């Protein structure tokens, strides 16, 4: 079996006068890659490009060695692709089983017995087998996210694109989903965007930080975290020179960046610390006028 891969060369995407992505070069292999960035950094646009839902306005995209701009090749890609969009709606009155079954039908699972077995398998993977007959409208937000994830897992795709898969999902289920995704990533390219740095730290070997449509960091999670070594400490007072500083539950202040003062206690940096340092301390600035999606 050939190794799954994705490559992007100088890829850009604009929406009218708004630039959402610019000059993106990436090579993705099997494994889980996390996509971090503030709102409007271009994460969703990048994922939609990888999922063949959106063509680039510049550059070259290759998914599994195929060109998504060519109709027949795009269809080939889609046969091996799972995609969970950021926002997903469900037809009125559908149960979890009915919706996933409907998407399975569109994914060419025409034989009913095999299709139903596959629908059950993916609903079981996301922990929804007991709720398969429940109407989606009556489900919680987290359960709906899991229905959306289940349809993406149909057929164990070689490429799995997930836009904020863990939003609204409870901690126990997030652990279950991490296990499922780690197993799939042994053979498949899994790219997920999230605002949960702990998900990236727990699951991803590689992290890409996007900012204003450009790749700001691309490398191992441990390397990014390592960049913050020695720059995170606890003190009794907030440091005005720190990139960010906040009061922790113990009453002491966690300072990220800035100058280490006397009496400060160095602590192990987290991925979130490293991300905030990379971003220059601004937690989630909006980038109006530059990036749309």
């Amino acid at each position: 079996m050939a190794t799954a891969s994705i490559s992007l060369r100088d890829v850009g995407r604009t929406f009218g006068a708004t630039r959402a992505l610019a000059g993106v070069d990436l090579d993705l292999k099997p494994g889980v890659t996390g996509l971090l960035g503030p709102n409007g950094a271009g994460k969703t646009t990048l994922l939609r490009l990888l999922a063949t839902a959106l063509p680039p306005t510049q550059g070259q995209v290759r998914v599994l060695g195929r060109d998504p701009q060519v109709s027949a090749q795009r269809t080939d890609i889609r046969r091996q692709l799972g995609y969970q969009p950021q926002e997903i709606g469900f037809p009125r009155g559908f149960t979890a089983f009915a919706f996933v079954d409907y998407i399975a039908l569109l994914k060419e699972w025409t034989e009913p017995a095999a299709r139903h077995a596959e629908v059950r398998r993916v609903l079981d993977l996301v922990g929804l087998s007991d709720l398969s007959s429940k109407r989606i409208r009556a489900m919680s937000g987290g359960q709906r996210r899991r229905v959306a994830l289940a349809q993406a897992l149909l057929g164990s795709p070689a490429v799995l694109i997930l836009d904020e898969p863990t939003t609204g999902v409870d901690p126990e289920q997030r652990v279950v989903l991490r296990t499922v995704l780690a197993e799939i990533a042994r053979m498949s390219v899994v790219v997920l965007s999230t605002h949960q740095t702990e998900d990236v730290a727990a699951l991803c070997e590689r992290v890409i930080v996007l900012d204003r449509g450009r790749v700001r960091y691309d490398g191992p999670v441990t390397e990014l975290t390592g960049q913050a070594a020695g720059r995170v400490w606890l003190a009794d007072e907030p440091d005005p020179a720190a990139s960010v500083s906040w009061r922790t539950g113990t009453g002491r202040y966690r300072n990220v960046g800035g100058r280490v003062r006397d009496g400060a206690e160095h602590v192990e940096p987290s991925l979130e610390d490293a991300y905030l340092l990379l971003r220059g301390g601004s937690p989630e600035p909006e980038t109006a006028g530059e990036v749309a999606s």
Partner: protein
Amino acid sequence: MTGWHLDDDALRRYVERTDSLAEGTSAEQHLLSCEPCRARVNTAASVIELSVIDIATVWDRTRDAIEVPRPSVFERLLRGAGLPAQEARLVAVASAFRGVWLTGVAAVLAFAALAAAVGHARGMWLFLAVAPVVPCLVVASSYDPWMDPALEPELVTPYPMLRLVLLRTVAVLALALPAVLLSGLLIPTEVPFAWLLPAVGFVAVVLAASTWFSPLRSAIAVSSVWLGVIWLLALRSGAPEAVLQARAQAAFLALAAASFSIFLVRRRRLHQLRPWR
């Protein structure tokens, strides 16, 4: 004790679980009250290899009975009409947007009643303004990302978007047109179905425009232009039949043919359908 017993074949199918759900239920009911047949089941089960009794299959069938949604009346009708089960299912999903076309059909019926009440000329203008635009609005609603919130995962499946759009178009037209046709009979005119060709033309224009813009935006634009044209014509001449002359009808037919050709040529652009936001 009952007056009959399971025959050997039925008993074997029951033990091997190769019977249908209905047959199995019937056998089970019988076994509850028939001691001799229960004894035969025990004997038969003891000589059958365990591997023959596929527990997983039995379990799957049981779950199917609970989980697989029963086809809607509409879906069963489509299957009865000869449409393959898979296509019938995909078309039936479009009927989930029945709220949209019901609104459209209700609008036409209301306008038809109003048109019948206000008399021949003015009534005909009213009906002519509304009837042709309803089909294109309901068709656009059936595959517009704004109306179909599941469109994004649908778009990235290998199923051809062109086929899905056309299936839905045919489905909603099949649902909406009979009601609009009937309402045409309420209008005091000699040509109650003359709005059909404009409607076909507008549906084709919306399909073609959907390769550039969002379907709903296209349908609203087409409807607005049509209402403007009708308003201007009504101001200039009092006779609505002018719109329905052979030349005008031929123009609508040409519009439909040209638009549908553009749609087919640009069909690959459908994958870029964007929501209206």
